[in-house]
């Protein structure tokens, strides 16, 4: 399953229940050294629970969990020395400055990166003396990534690193995360943004209701399901999806978010047939366009639901 030989994360049949809630219900996967591995899924899918079991923060109910070749339950301390952790929505000592926080967290580890170097790495030089409570959302996320890097970890966990950020802050964080991989670190991240998973991850596990539904490289995930591309336009009652499914080249028709989507093996044929049918009914398909199938389509196809926050 992994690309390079050595697996730094090995999870087999992991289960974690909270009473009746099956937060994680039999999950298995491996992550190879140097990979960026993503867990993609809607809120409540079980991503945080999974990642926090790997970080040694929650005990699993059953299953085996190995990180860096060590059993998480038996050897949490040596693992914690070698991993970097960013938790979903944590605000740290609000009245300490960026420099003070990095110094403090650095002191918890045997091996540490100089604070100055960390601040430069996440581009917070101008805010080094600012209290963490006064940082913007994007800056706080950069700080928490810097905190995850204080011990120069081999493996970095990032739980929804860009949730709630504006697109610009998100892009600059993506660059930061790509930089981690370039430095040879293995990254496991969770996200509920399709583009983020597609942009950053070598492999993605699609998760829902505590299960991994599908796993693989993004192009493979799409290609496995969709040999075709998609024609889409604003849905119109005069052009019902099931009627359109019979048009030339169309393999399947669906309605997603107010748009009718026709998956097609032969785009010119499909568009020609669609336009002449519309012409006959004296309607015009609005915002007509063509695109590749995306992870969004994969998720929709897997669950029958759209992936949205």
């Amino acid at each position, binding site marked *: 399953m992994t690309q390079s030989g050595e697996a730094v994360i090995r999870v087999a049949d992991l289960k974690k229940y909270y009473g009746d809630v099956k937060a994680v219900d039999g999950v298995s996967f491996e992550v190879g050294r140097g990979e960026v591995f993503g867990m993609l899924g809607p809120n409540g899918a079980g991503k945080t629970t999974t990642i926090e079991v790997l*970080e*040694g*923060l929650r005990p699993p109910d059953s299953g085996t969990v190995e990180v860096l070749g060590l059993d998480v339950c038996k050897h949490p*301390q040596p693992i*914690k*020395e070698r991993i970097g*952790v960013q*938790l979903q*929505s*944590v*605000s*740290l*000592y*609000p*009245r*300490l400055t960026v420099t*003070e926080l990095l*110094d*403090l*967290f650095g*002191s*918890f*580890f*045997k091996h540490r990166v100089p604070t100055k170097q960390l601040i430069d790495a996440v581009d917070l030089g101008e805010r080094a003396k600012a*209290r963490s409570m006064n940082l913007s959302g994007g800056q706080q996320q950069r700080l928490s990534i810097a*905190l995850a890097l204080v011990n120069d970890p081999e493996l970095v966990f990032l739980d929804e690193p860009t949730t709630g950020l504006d697109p610009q802050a998100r892009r600059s964080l993506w660059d930061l995360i790509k930089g981690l991989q370039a430095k040879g670190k293995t990254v496991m991240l969770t996200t509920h943004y399709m583009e983020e998973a597609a942009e950053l991850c070598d492999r993605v596990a699609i998760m829902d209701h505590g299960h991994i539904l599908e796993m693989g490289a993004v192009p493979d995930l799409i290609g496995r399901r969709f040999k075709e591309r998609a024609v889409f336009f604003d849905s119109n009652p005069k052009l019902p999806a099931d009627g359109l499914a019979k048009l030339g080249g169309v393999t399947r028709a669906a309605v997603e978010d107010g748009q009718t989507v026709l998956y097609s093996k032969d785009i010119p044929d499909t568009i020609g047939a669609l336009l002449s049918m519309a012409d006959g009914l004296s309607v015009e398909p609005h915002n007509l366009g063509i695109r590749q199938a995306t992870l969004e389509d994969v998720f929709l196809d897997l669950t029958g639901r759209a992936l949205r926050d």
Partner: protein
Amino acid sequence: MKTLLGLTVANIKSLTRDRAALFWTIFFPIMFVFLFGWIFGGSGGDTRISVGFVDQDASGASAGMRQAFSSVQILTLQYGTLEQEQAAMQHGDVSAIIVIPKDFGAGLTSKQAHAAVIQYYIDPSKTQVDQIVVGAVTQVQNGANLTIAGGSEVVSISPQTLTSNNIGAVAYLVPSILAMALMQLGVFAAIPLVQQREKGILKRIGATPLSRWKLVGSNVLLRLLVAIVDAVLIIGIGMVFFGVQVVGNVLAAGAFVLLGAGAFLAIGFMLASFLKTEEQATGVVQVVQMPMMFLSGIFFQFDFLPGFLQTVGRAMPLTYLADALRQTMVNGTQIVPLTTDFAILAVWLVVCLGISTRFFRWE
């Protein structure tokens, strides 16, 4: 050890940069000392001291002494038998007693050295008053020796001590306010703990190799340091501004400051174990500390409370910390012996700590 210190410094910075927290842990108790010091120490303008005068000789010479003492500006005399005046002194109605014993007149006429004795009773815990009384007695003694005995040492003085039960309102209040400050310091510790858990700081630190006892230890260390600062400030202000004398066992008082802070910290930790949100914590902490403040006899003598409230008060650990601090700092009247105070506080410490370790949640 280095990480423990680092964390403690982080906690100190967080506290000193948080104006509200700083107010409650340090300025609030100090404000109390000033407030109550001014209210109850109101005799500051009137510096006259009430002194009991006992004439057991009933001679011309003793009448002369009475005349001499009543002409000392700073003293107000009150006359009675020794028993009456001793009782008055114990109640705090007079601050000292001057006694002219039988045969004073005869001794004076004998003109033999030290034949005539002036006795006086002072309370060693009230040094300021004592200095004035001793000064007055010495002045009268010298005057008598000069005018009557021509400068030879016929009249001598003999000091006695008598400890008053009434230690004075401010002297009563200073250890009480210190006890209150320690109680609040400990109980209020629940708030930052719940806050840190709610914010995920405890969890985030749990993802590092740092052991959790260091995390808790740093919180304890911070609070104990603040306890010492509070003690020094409160006692210092009492001494400098309101003339309170610390006469008891300083070491024992220090030990009770730490034990008390520890017991209330354990209570704070126990509260933090059961409270989920910061709002809950702020509310519950007030519900816990307010009745303790008023029912533990720290602002007025315990006996003044109605019976059933005394029972409630007796169940509260603050009662015993205040009692212990009064006993060790200003020789206050005991509610229970020091060993009982110690035992009760230690039990609170151990039980609450046990409950905390069992129920405390890191997230």
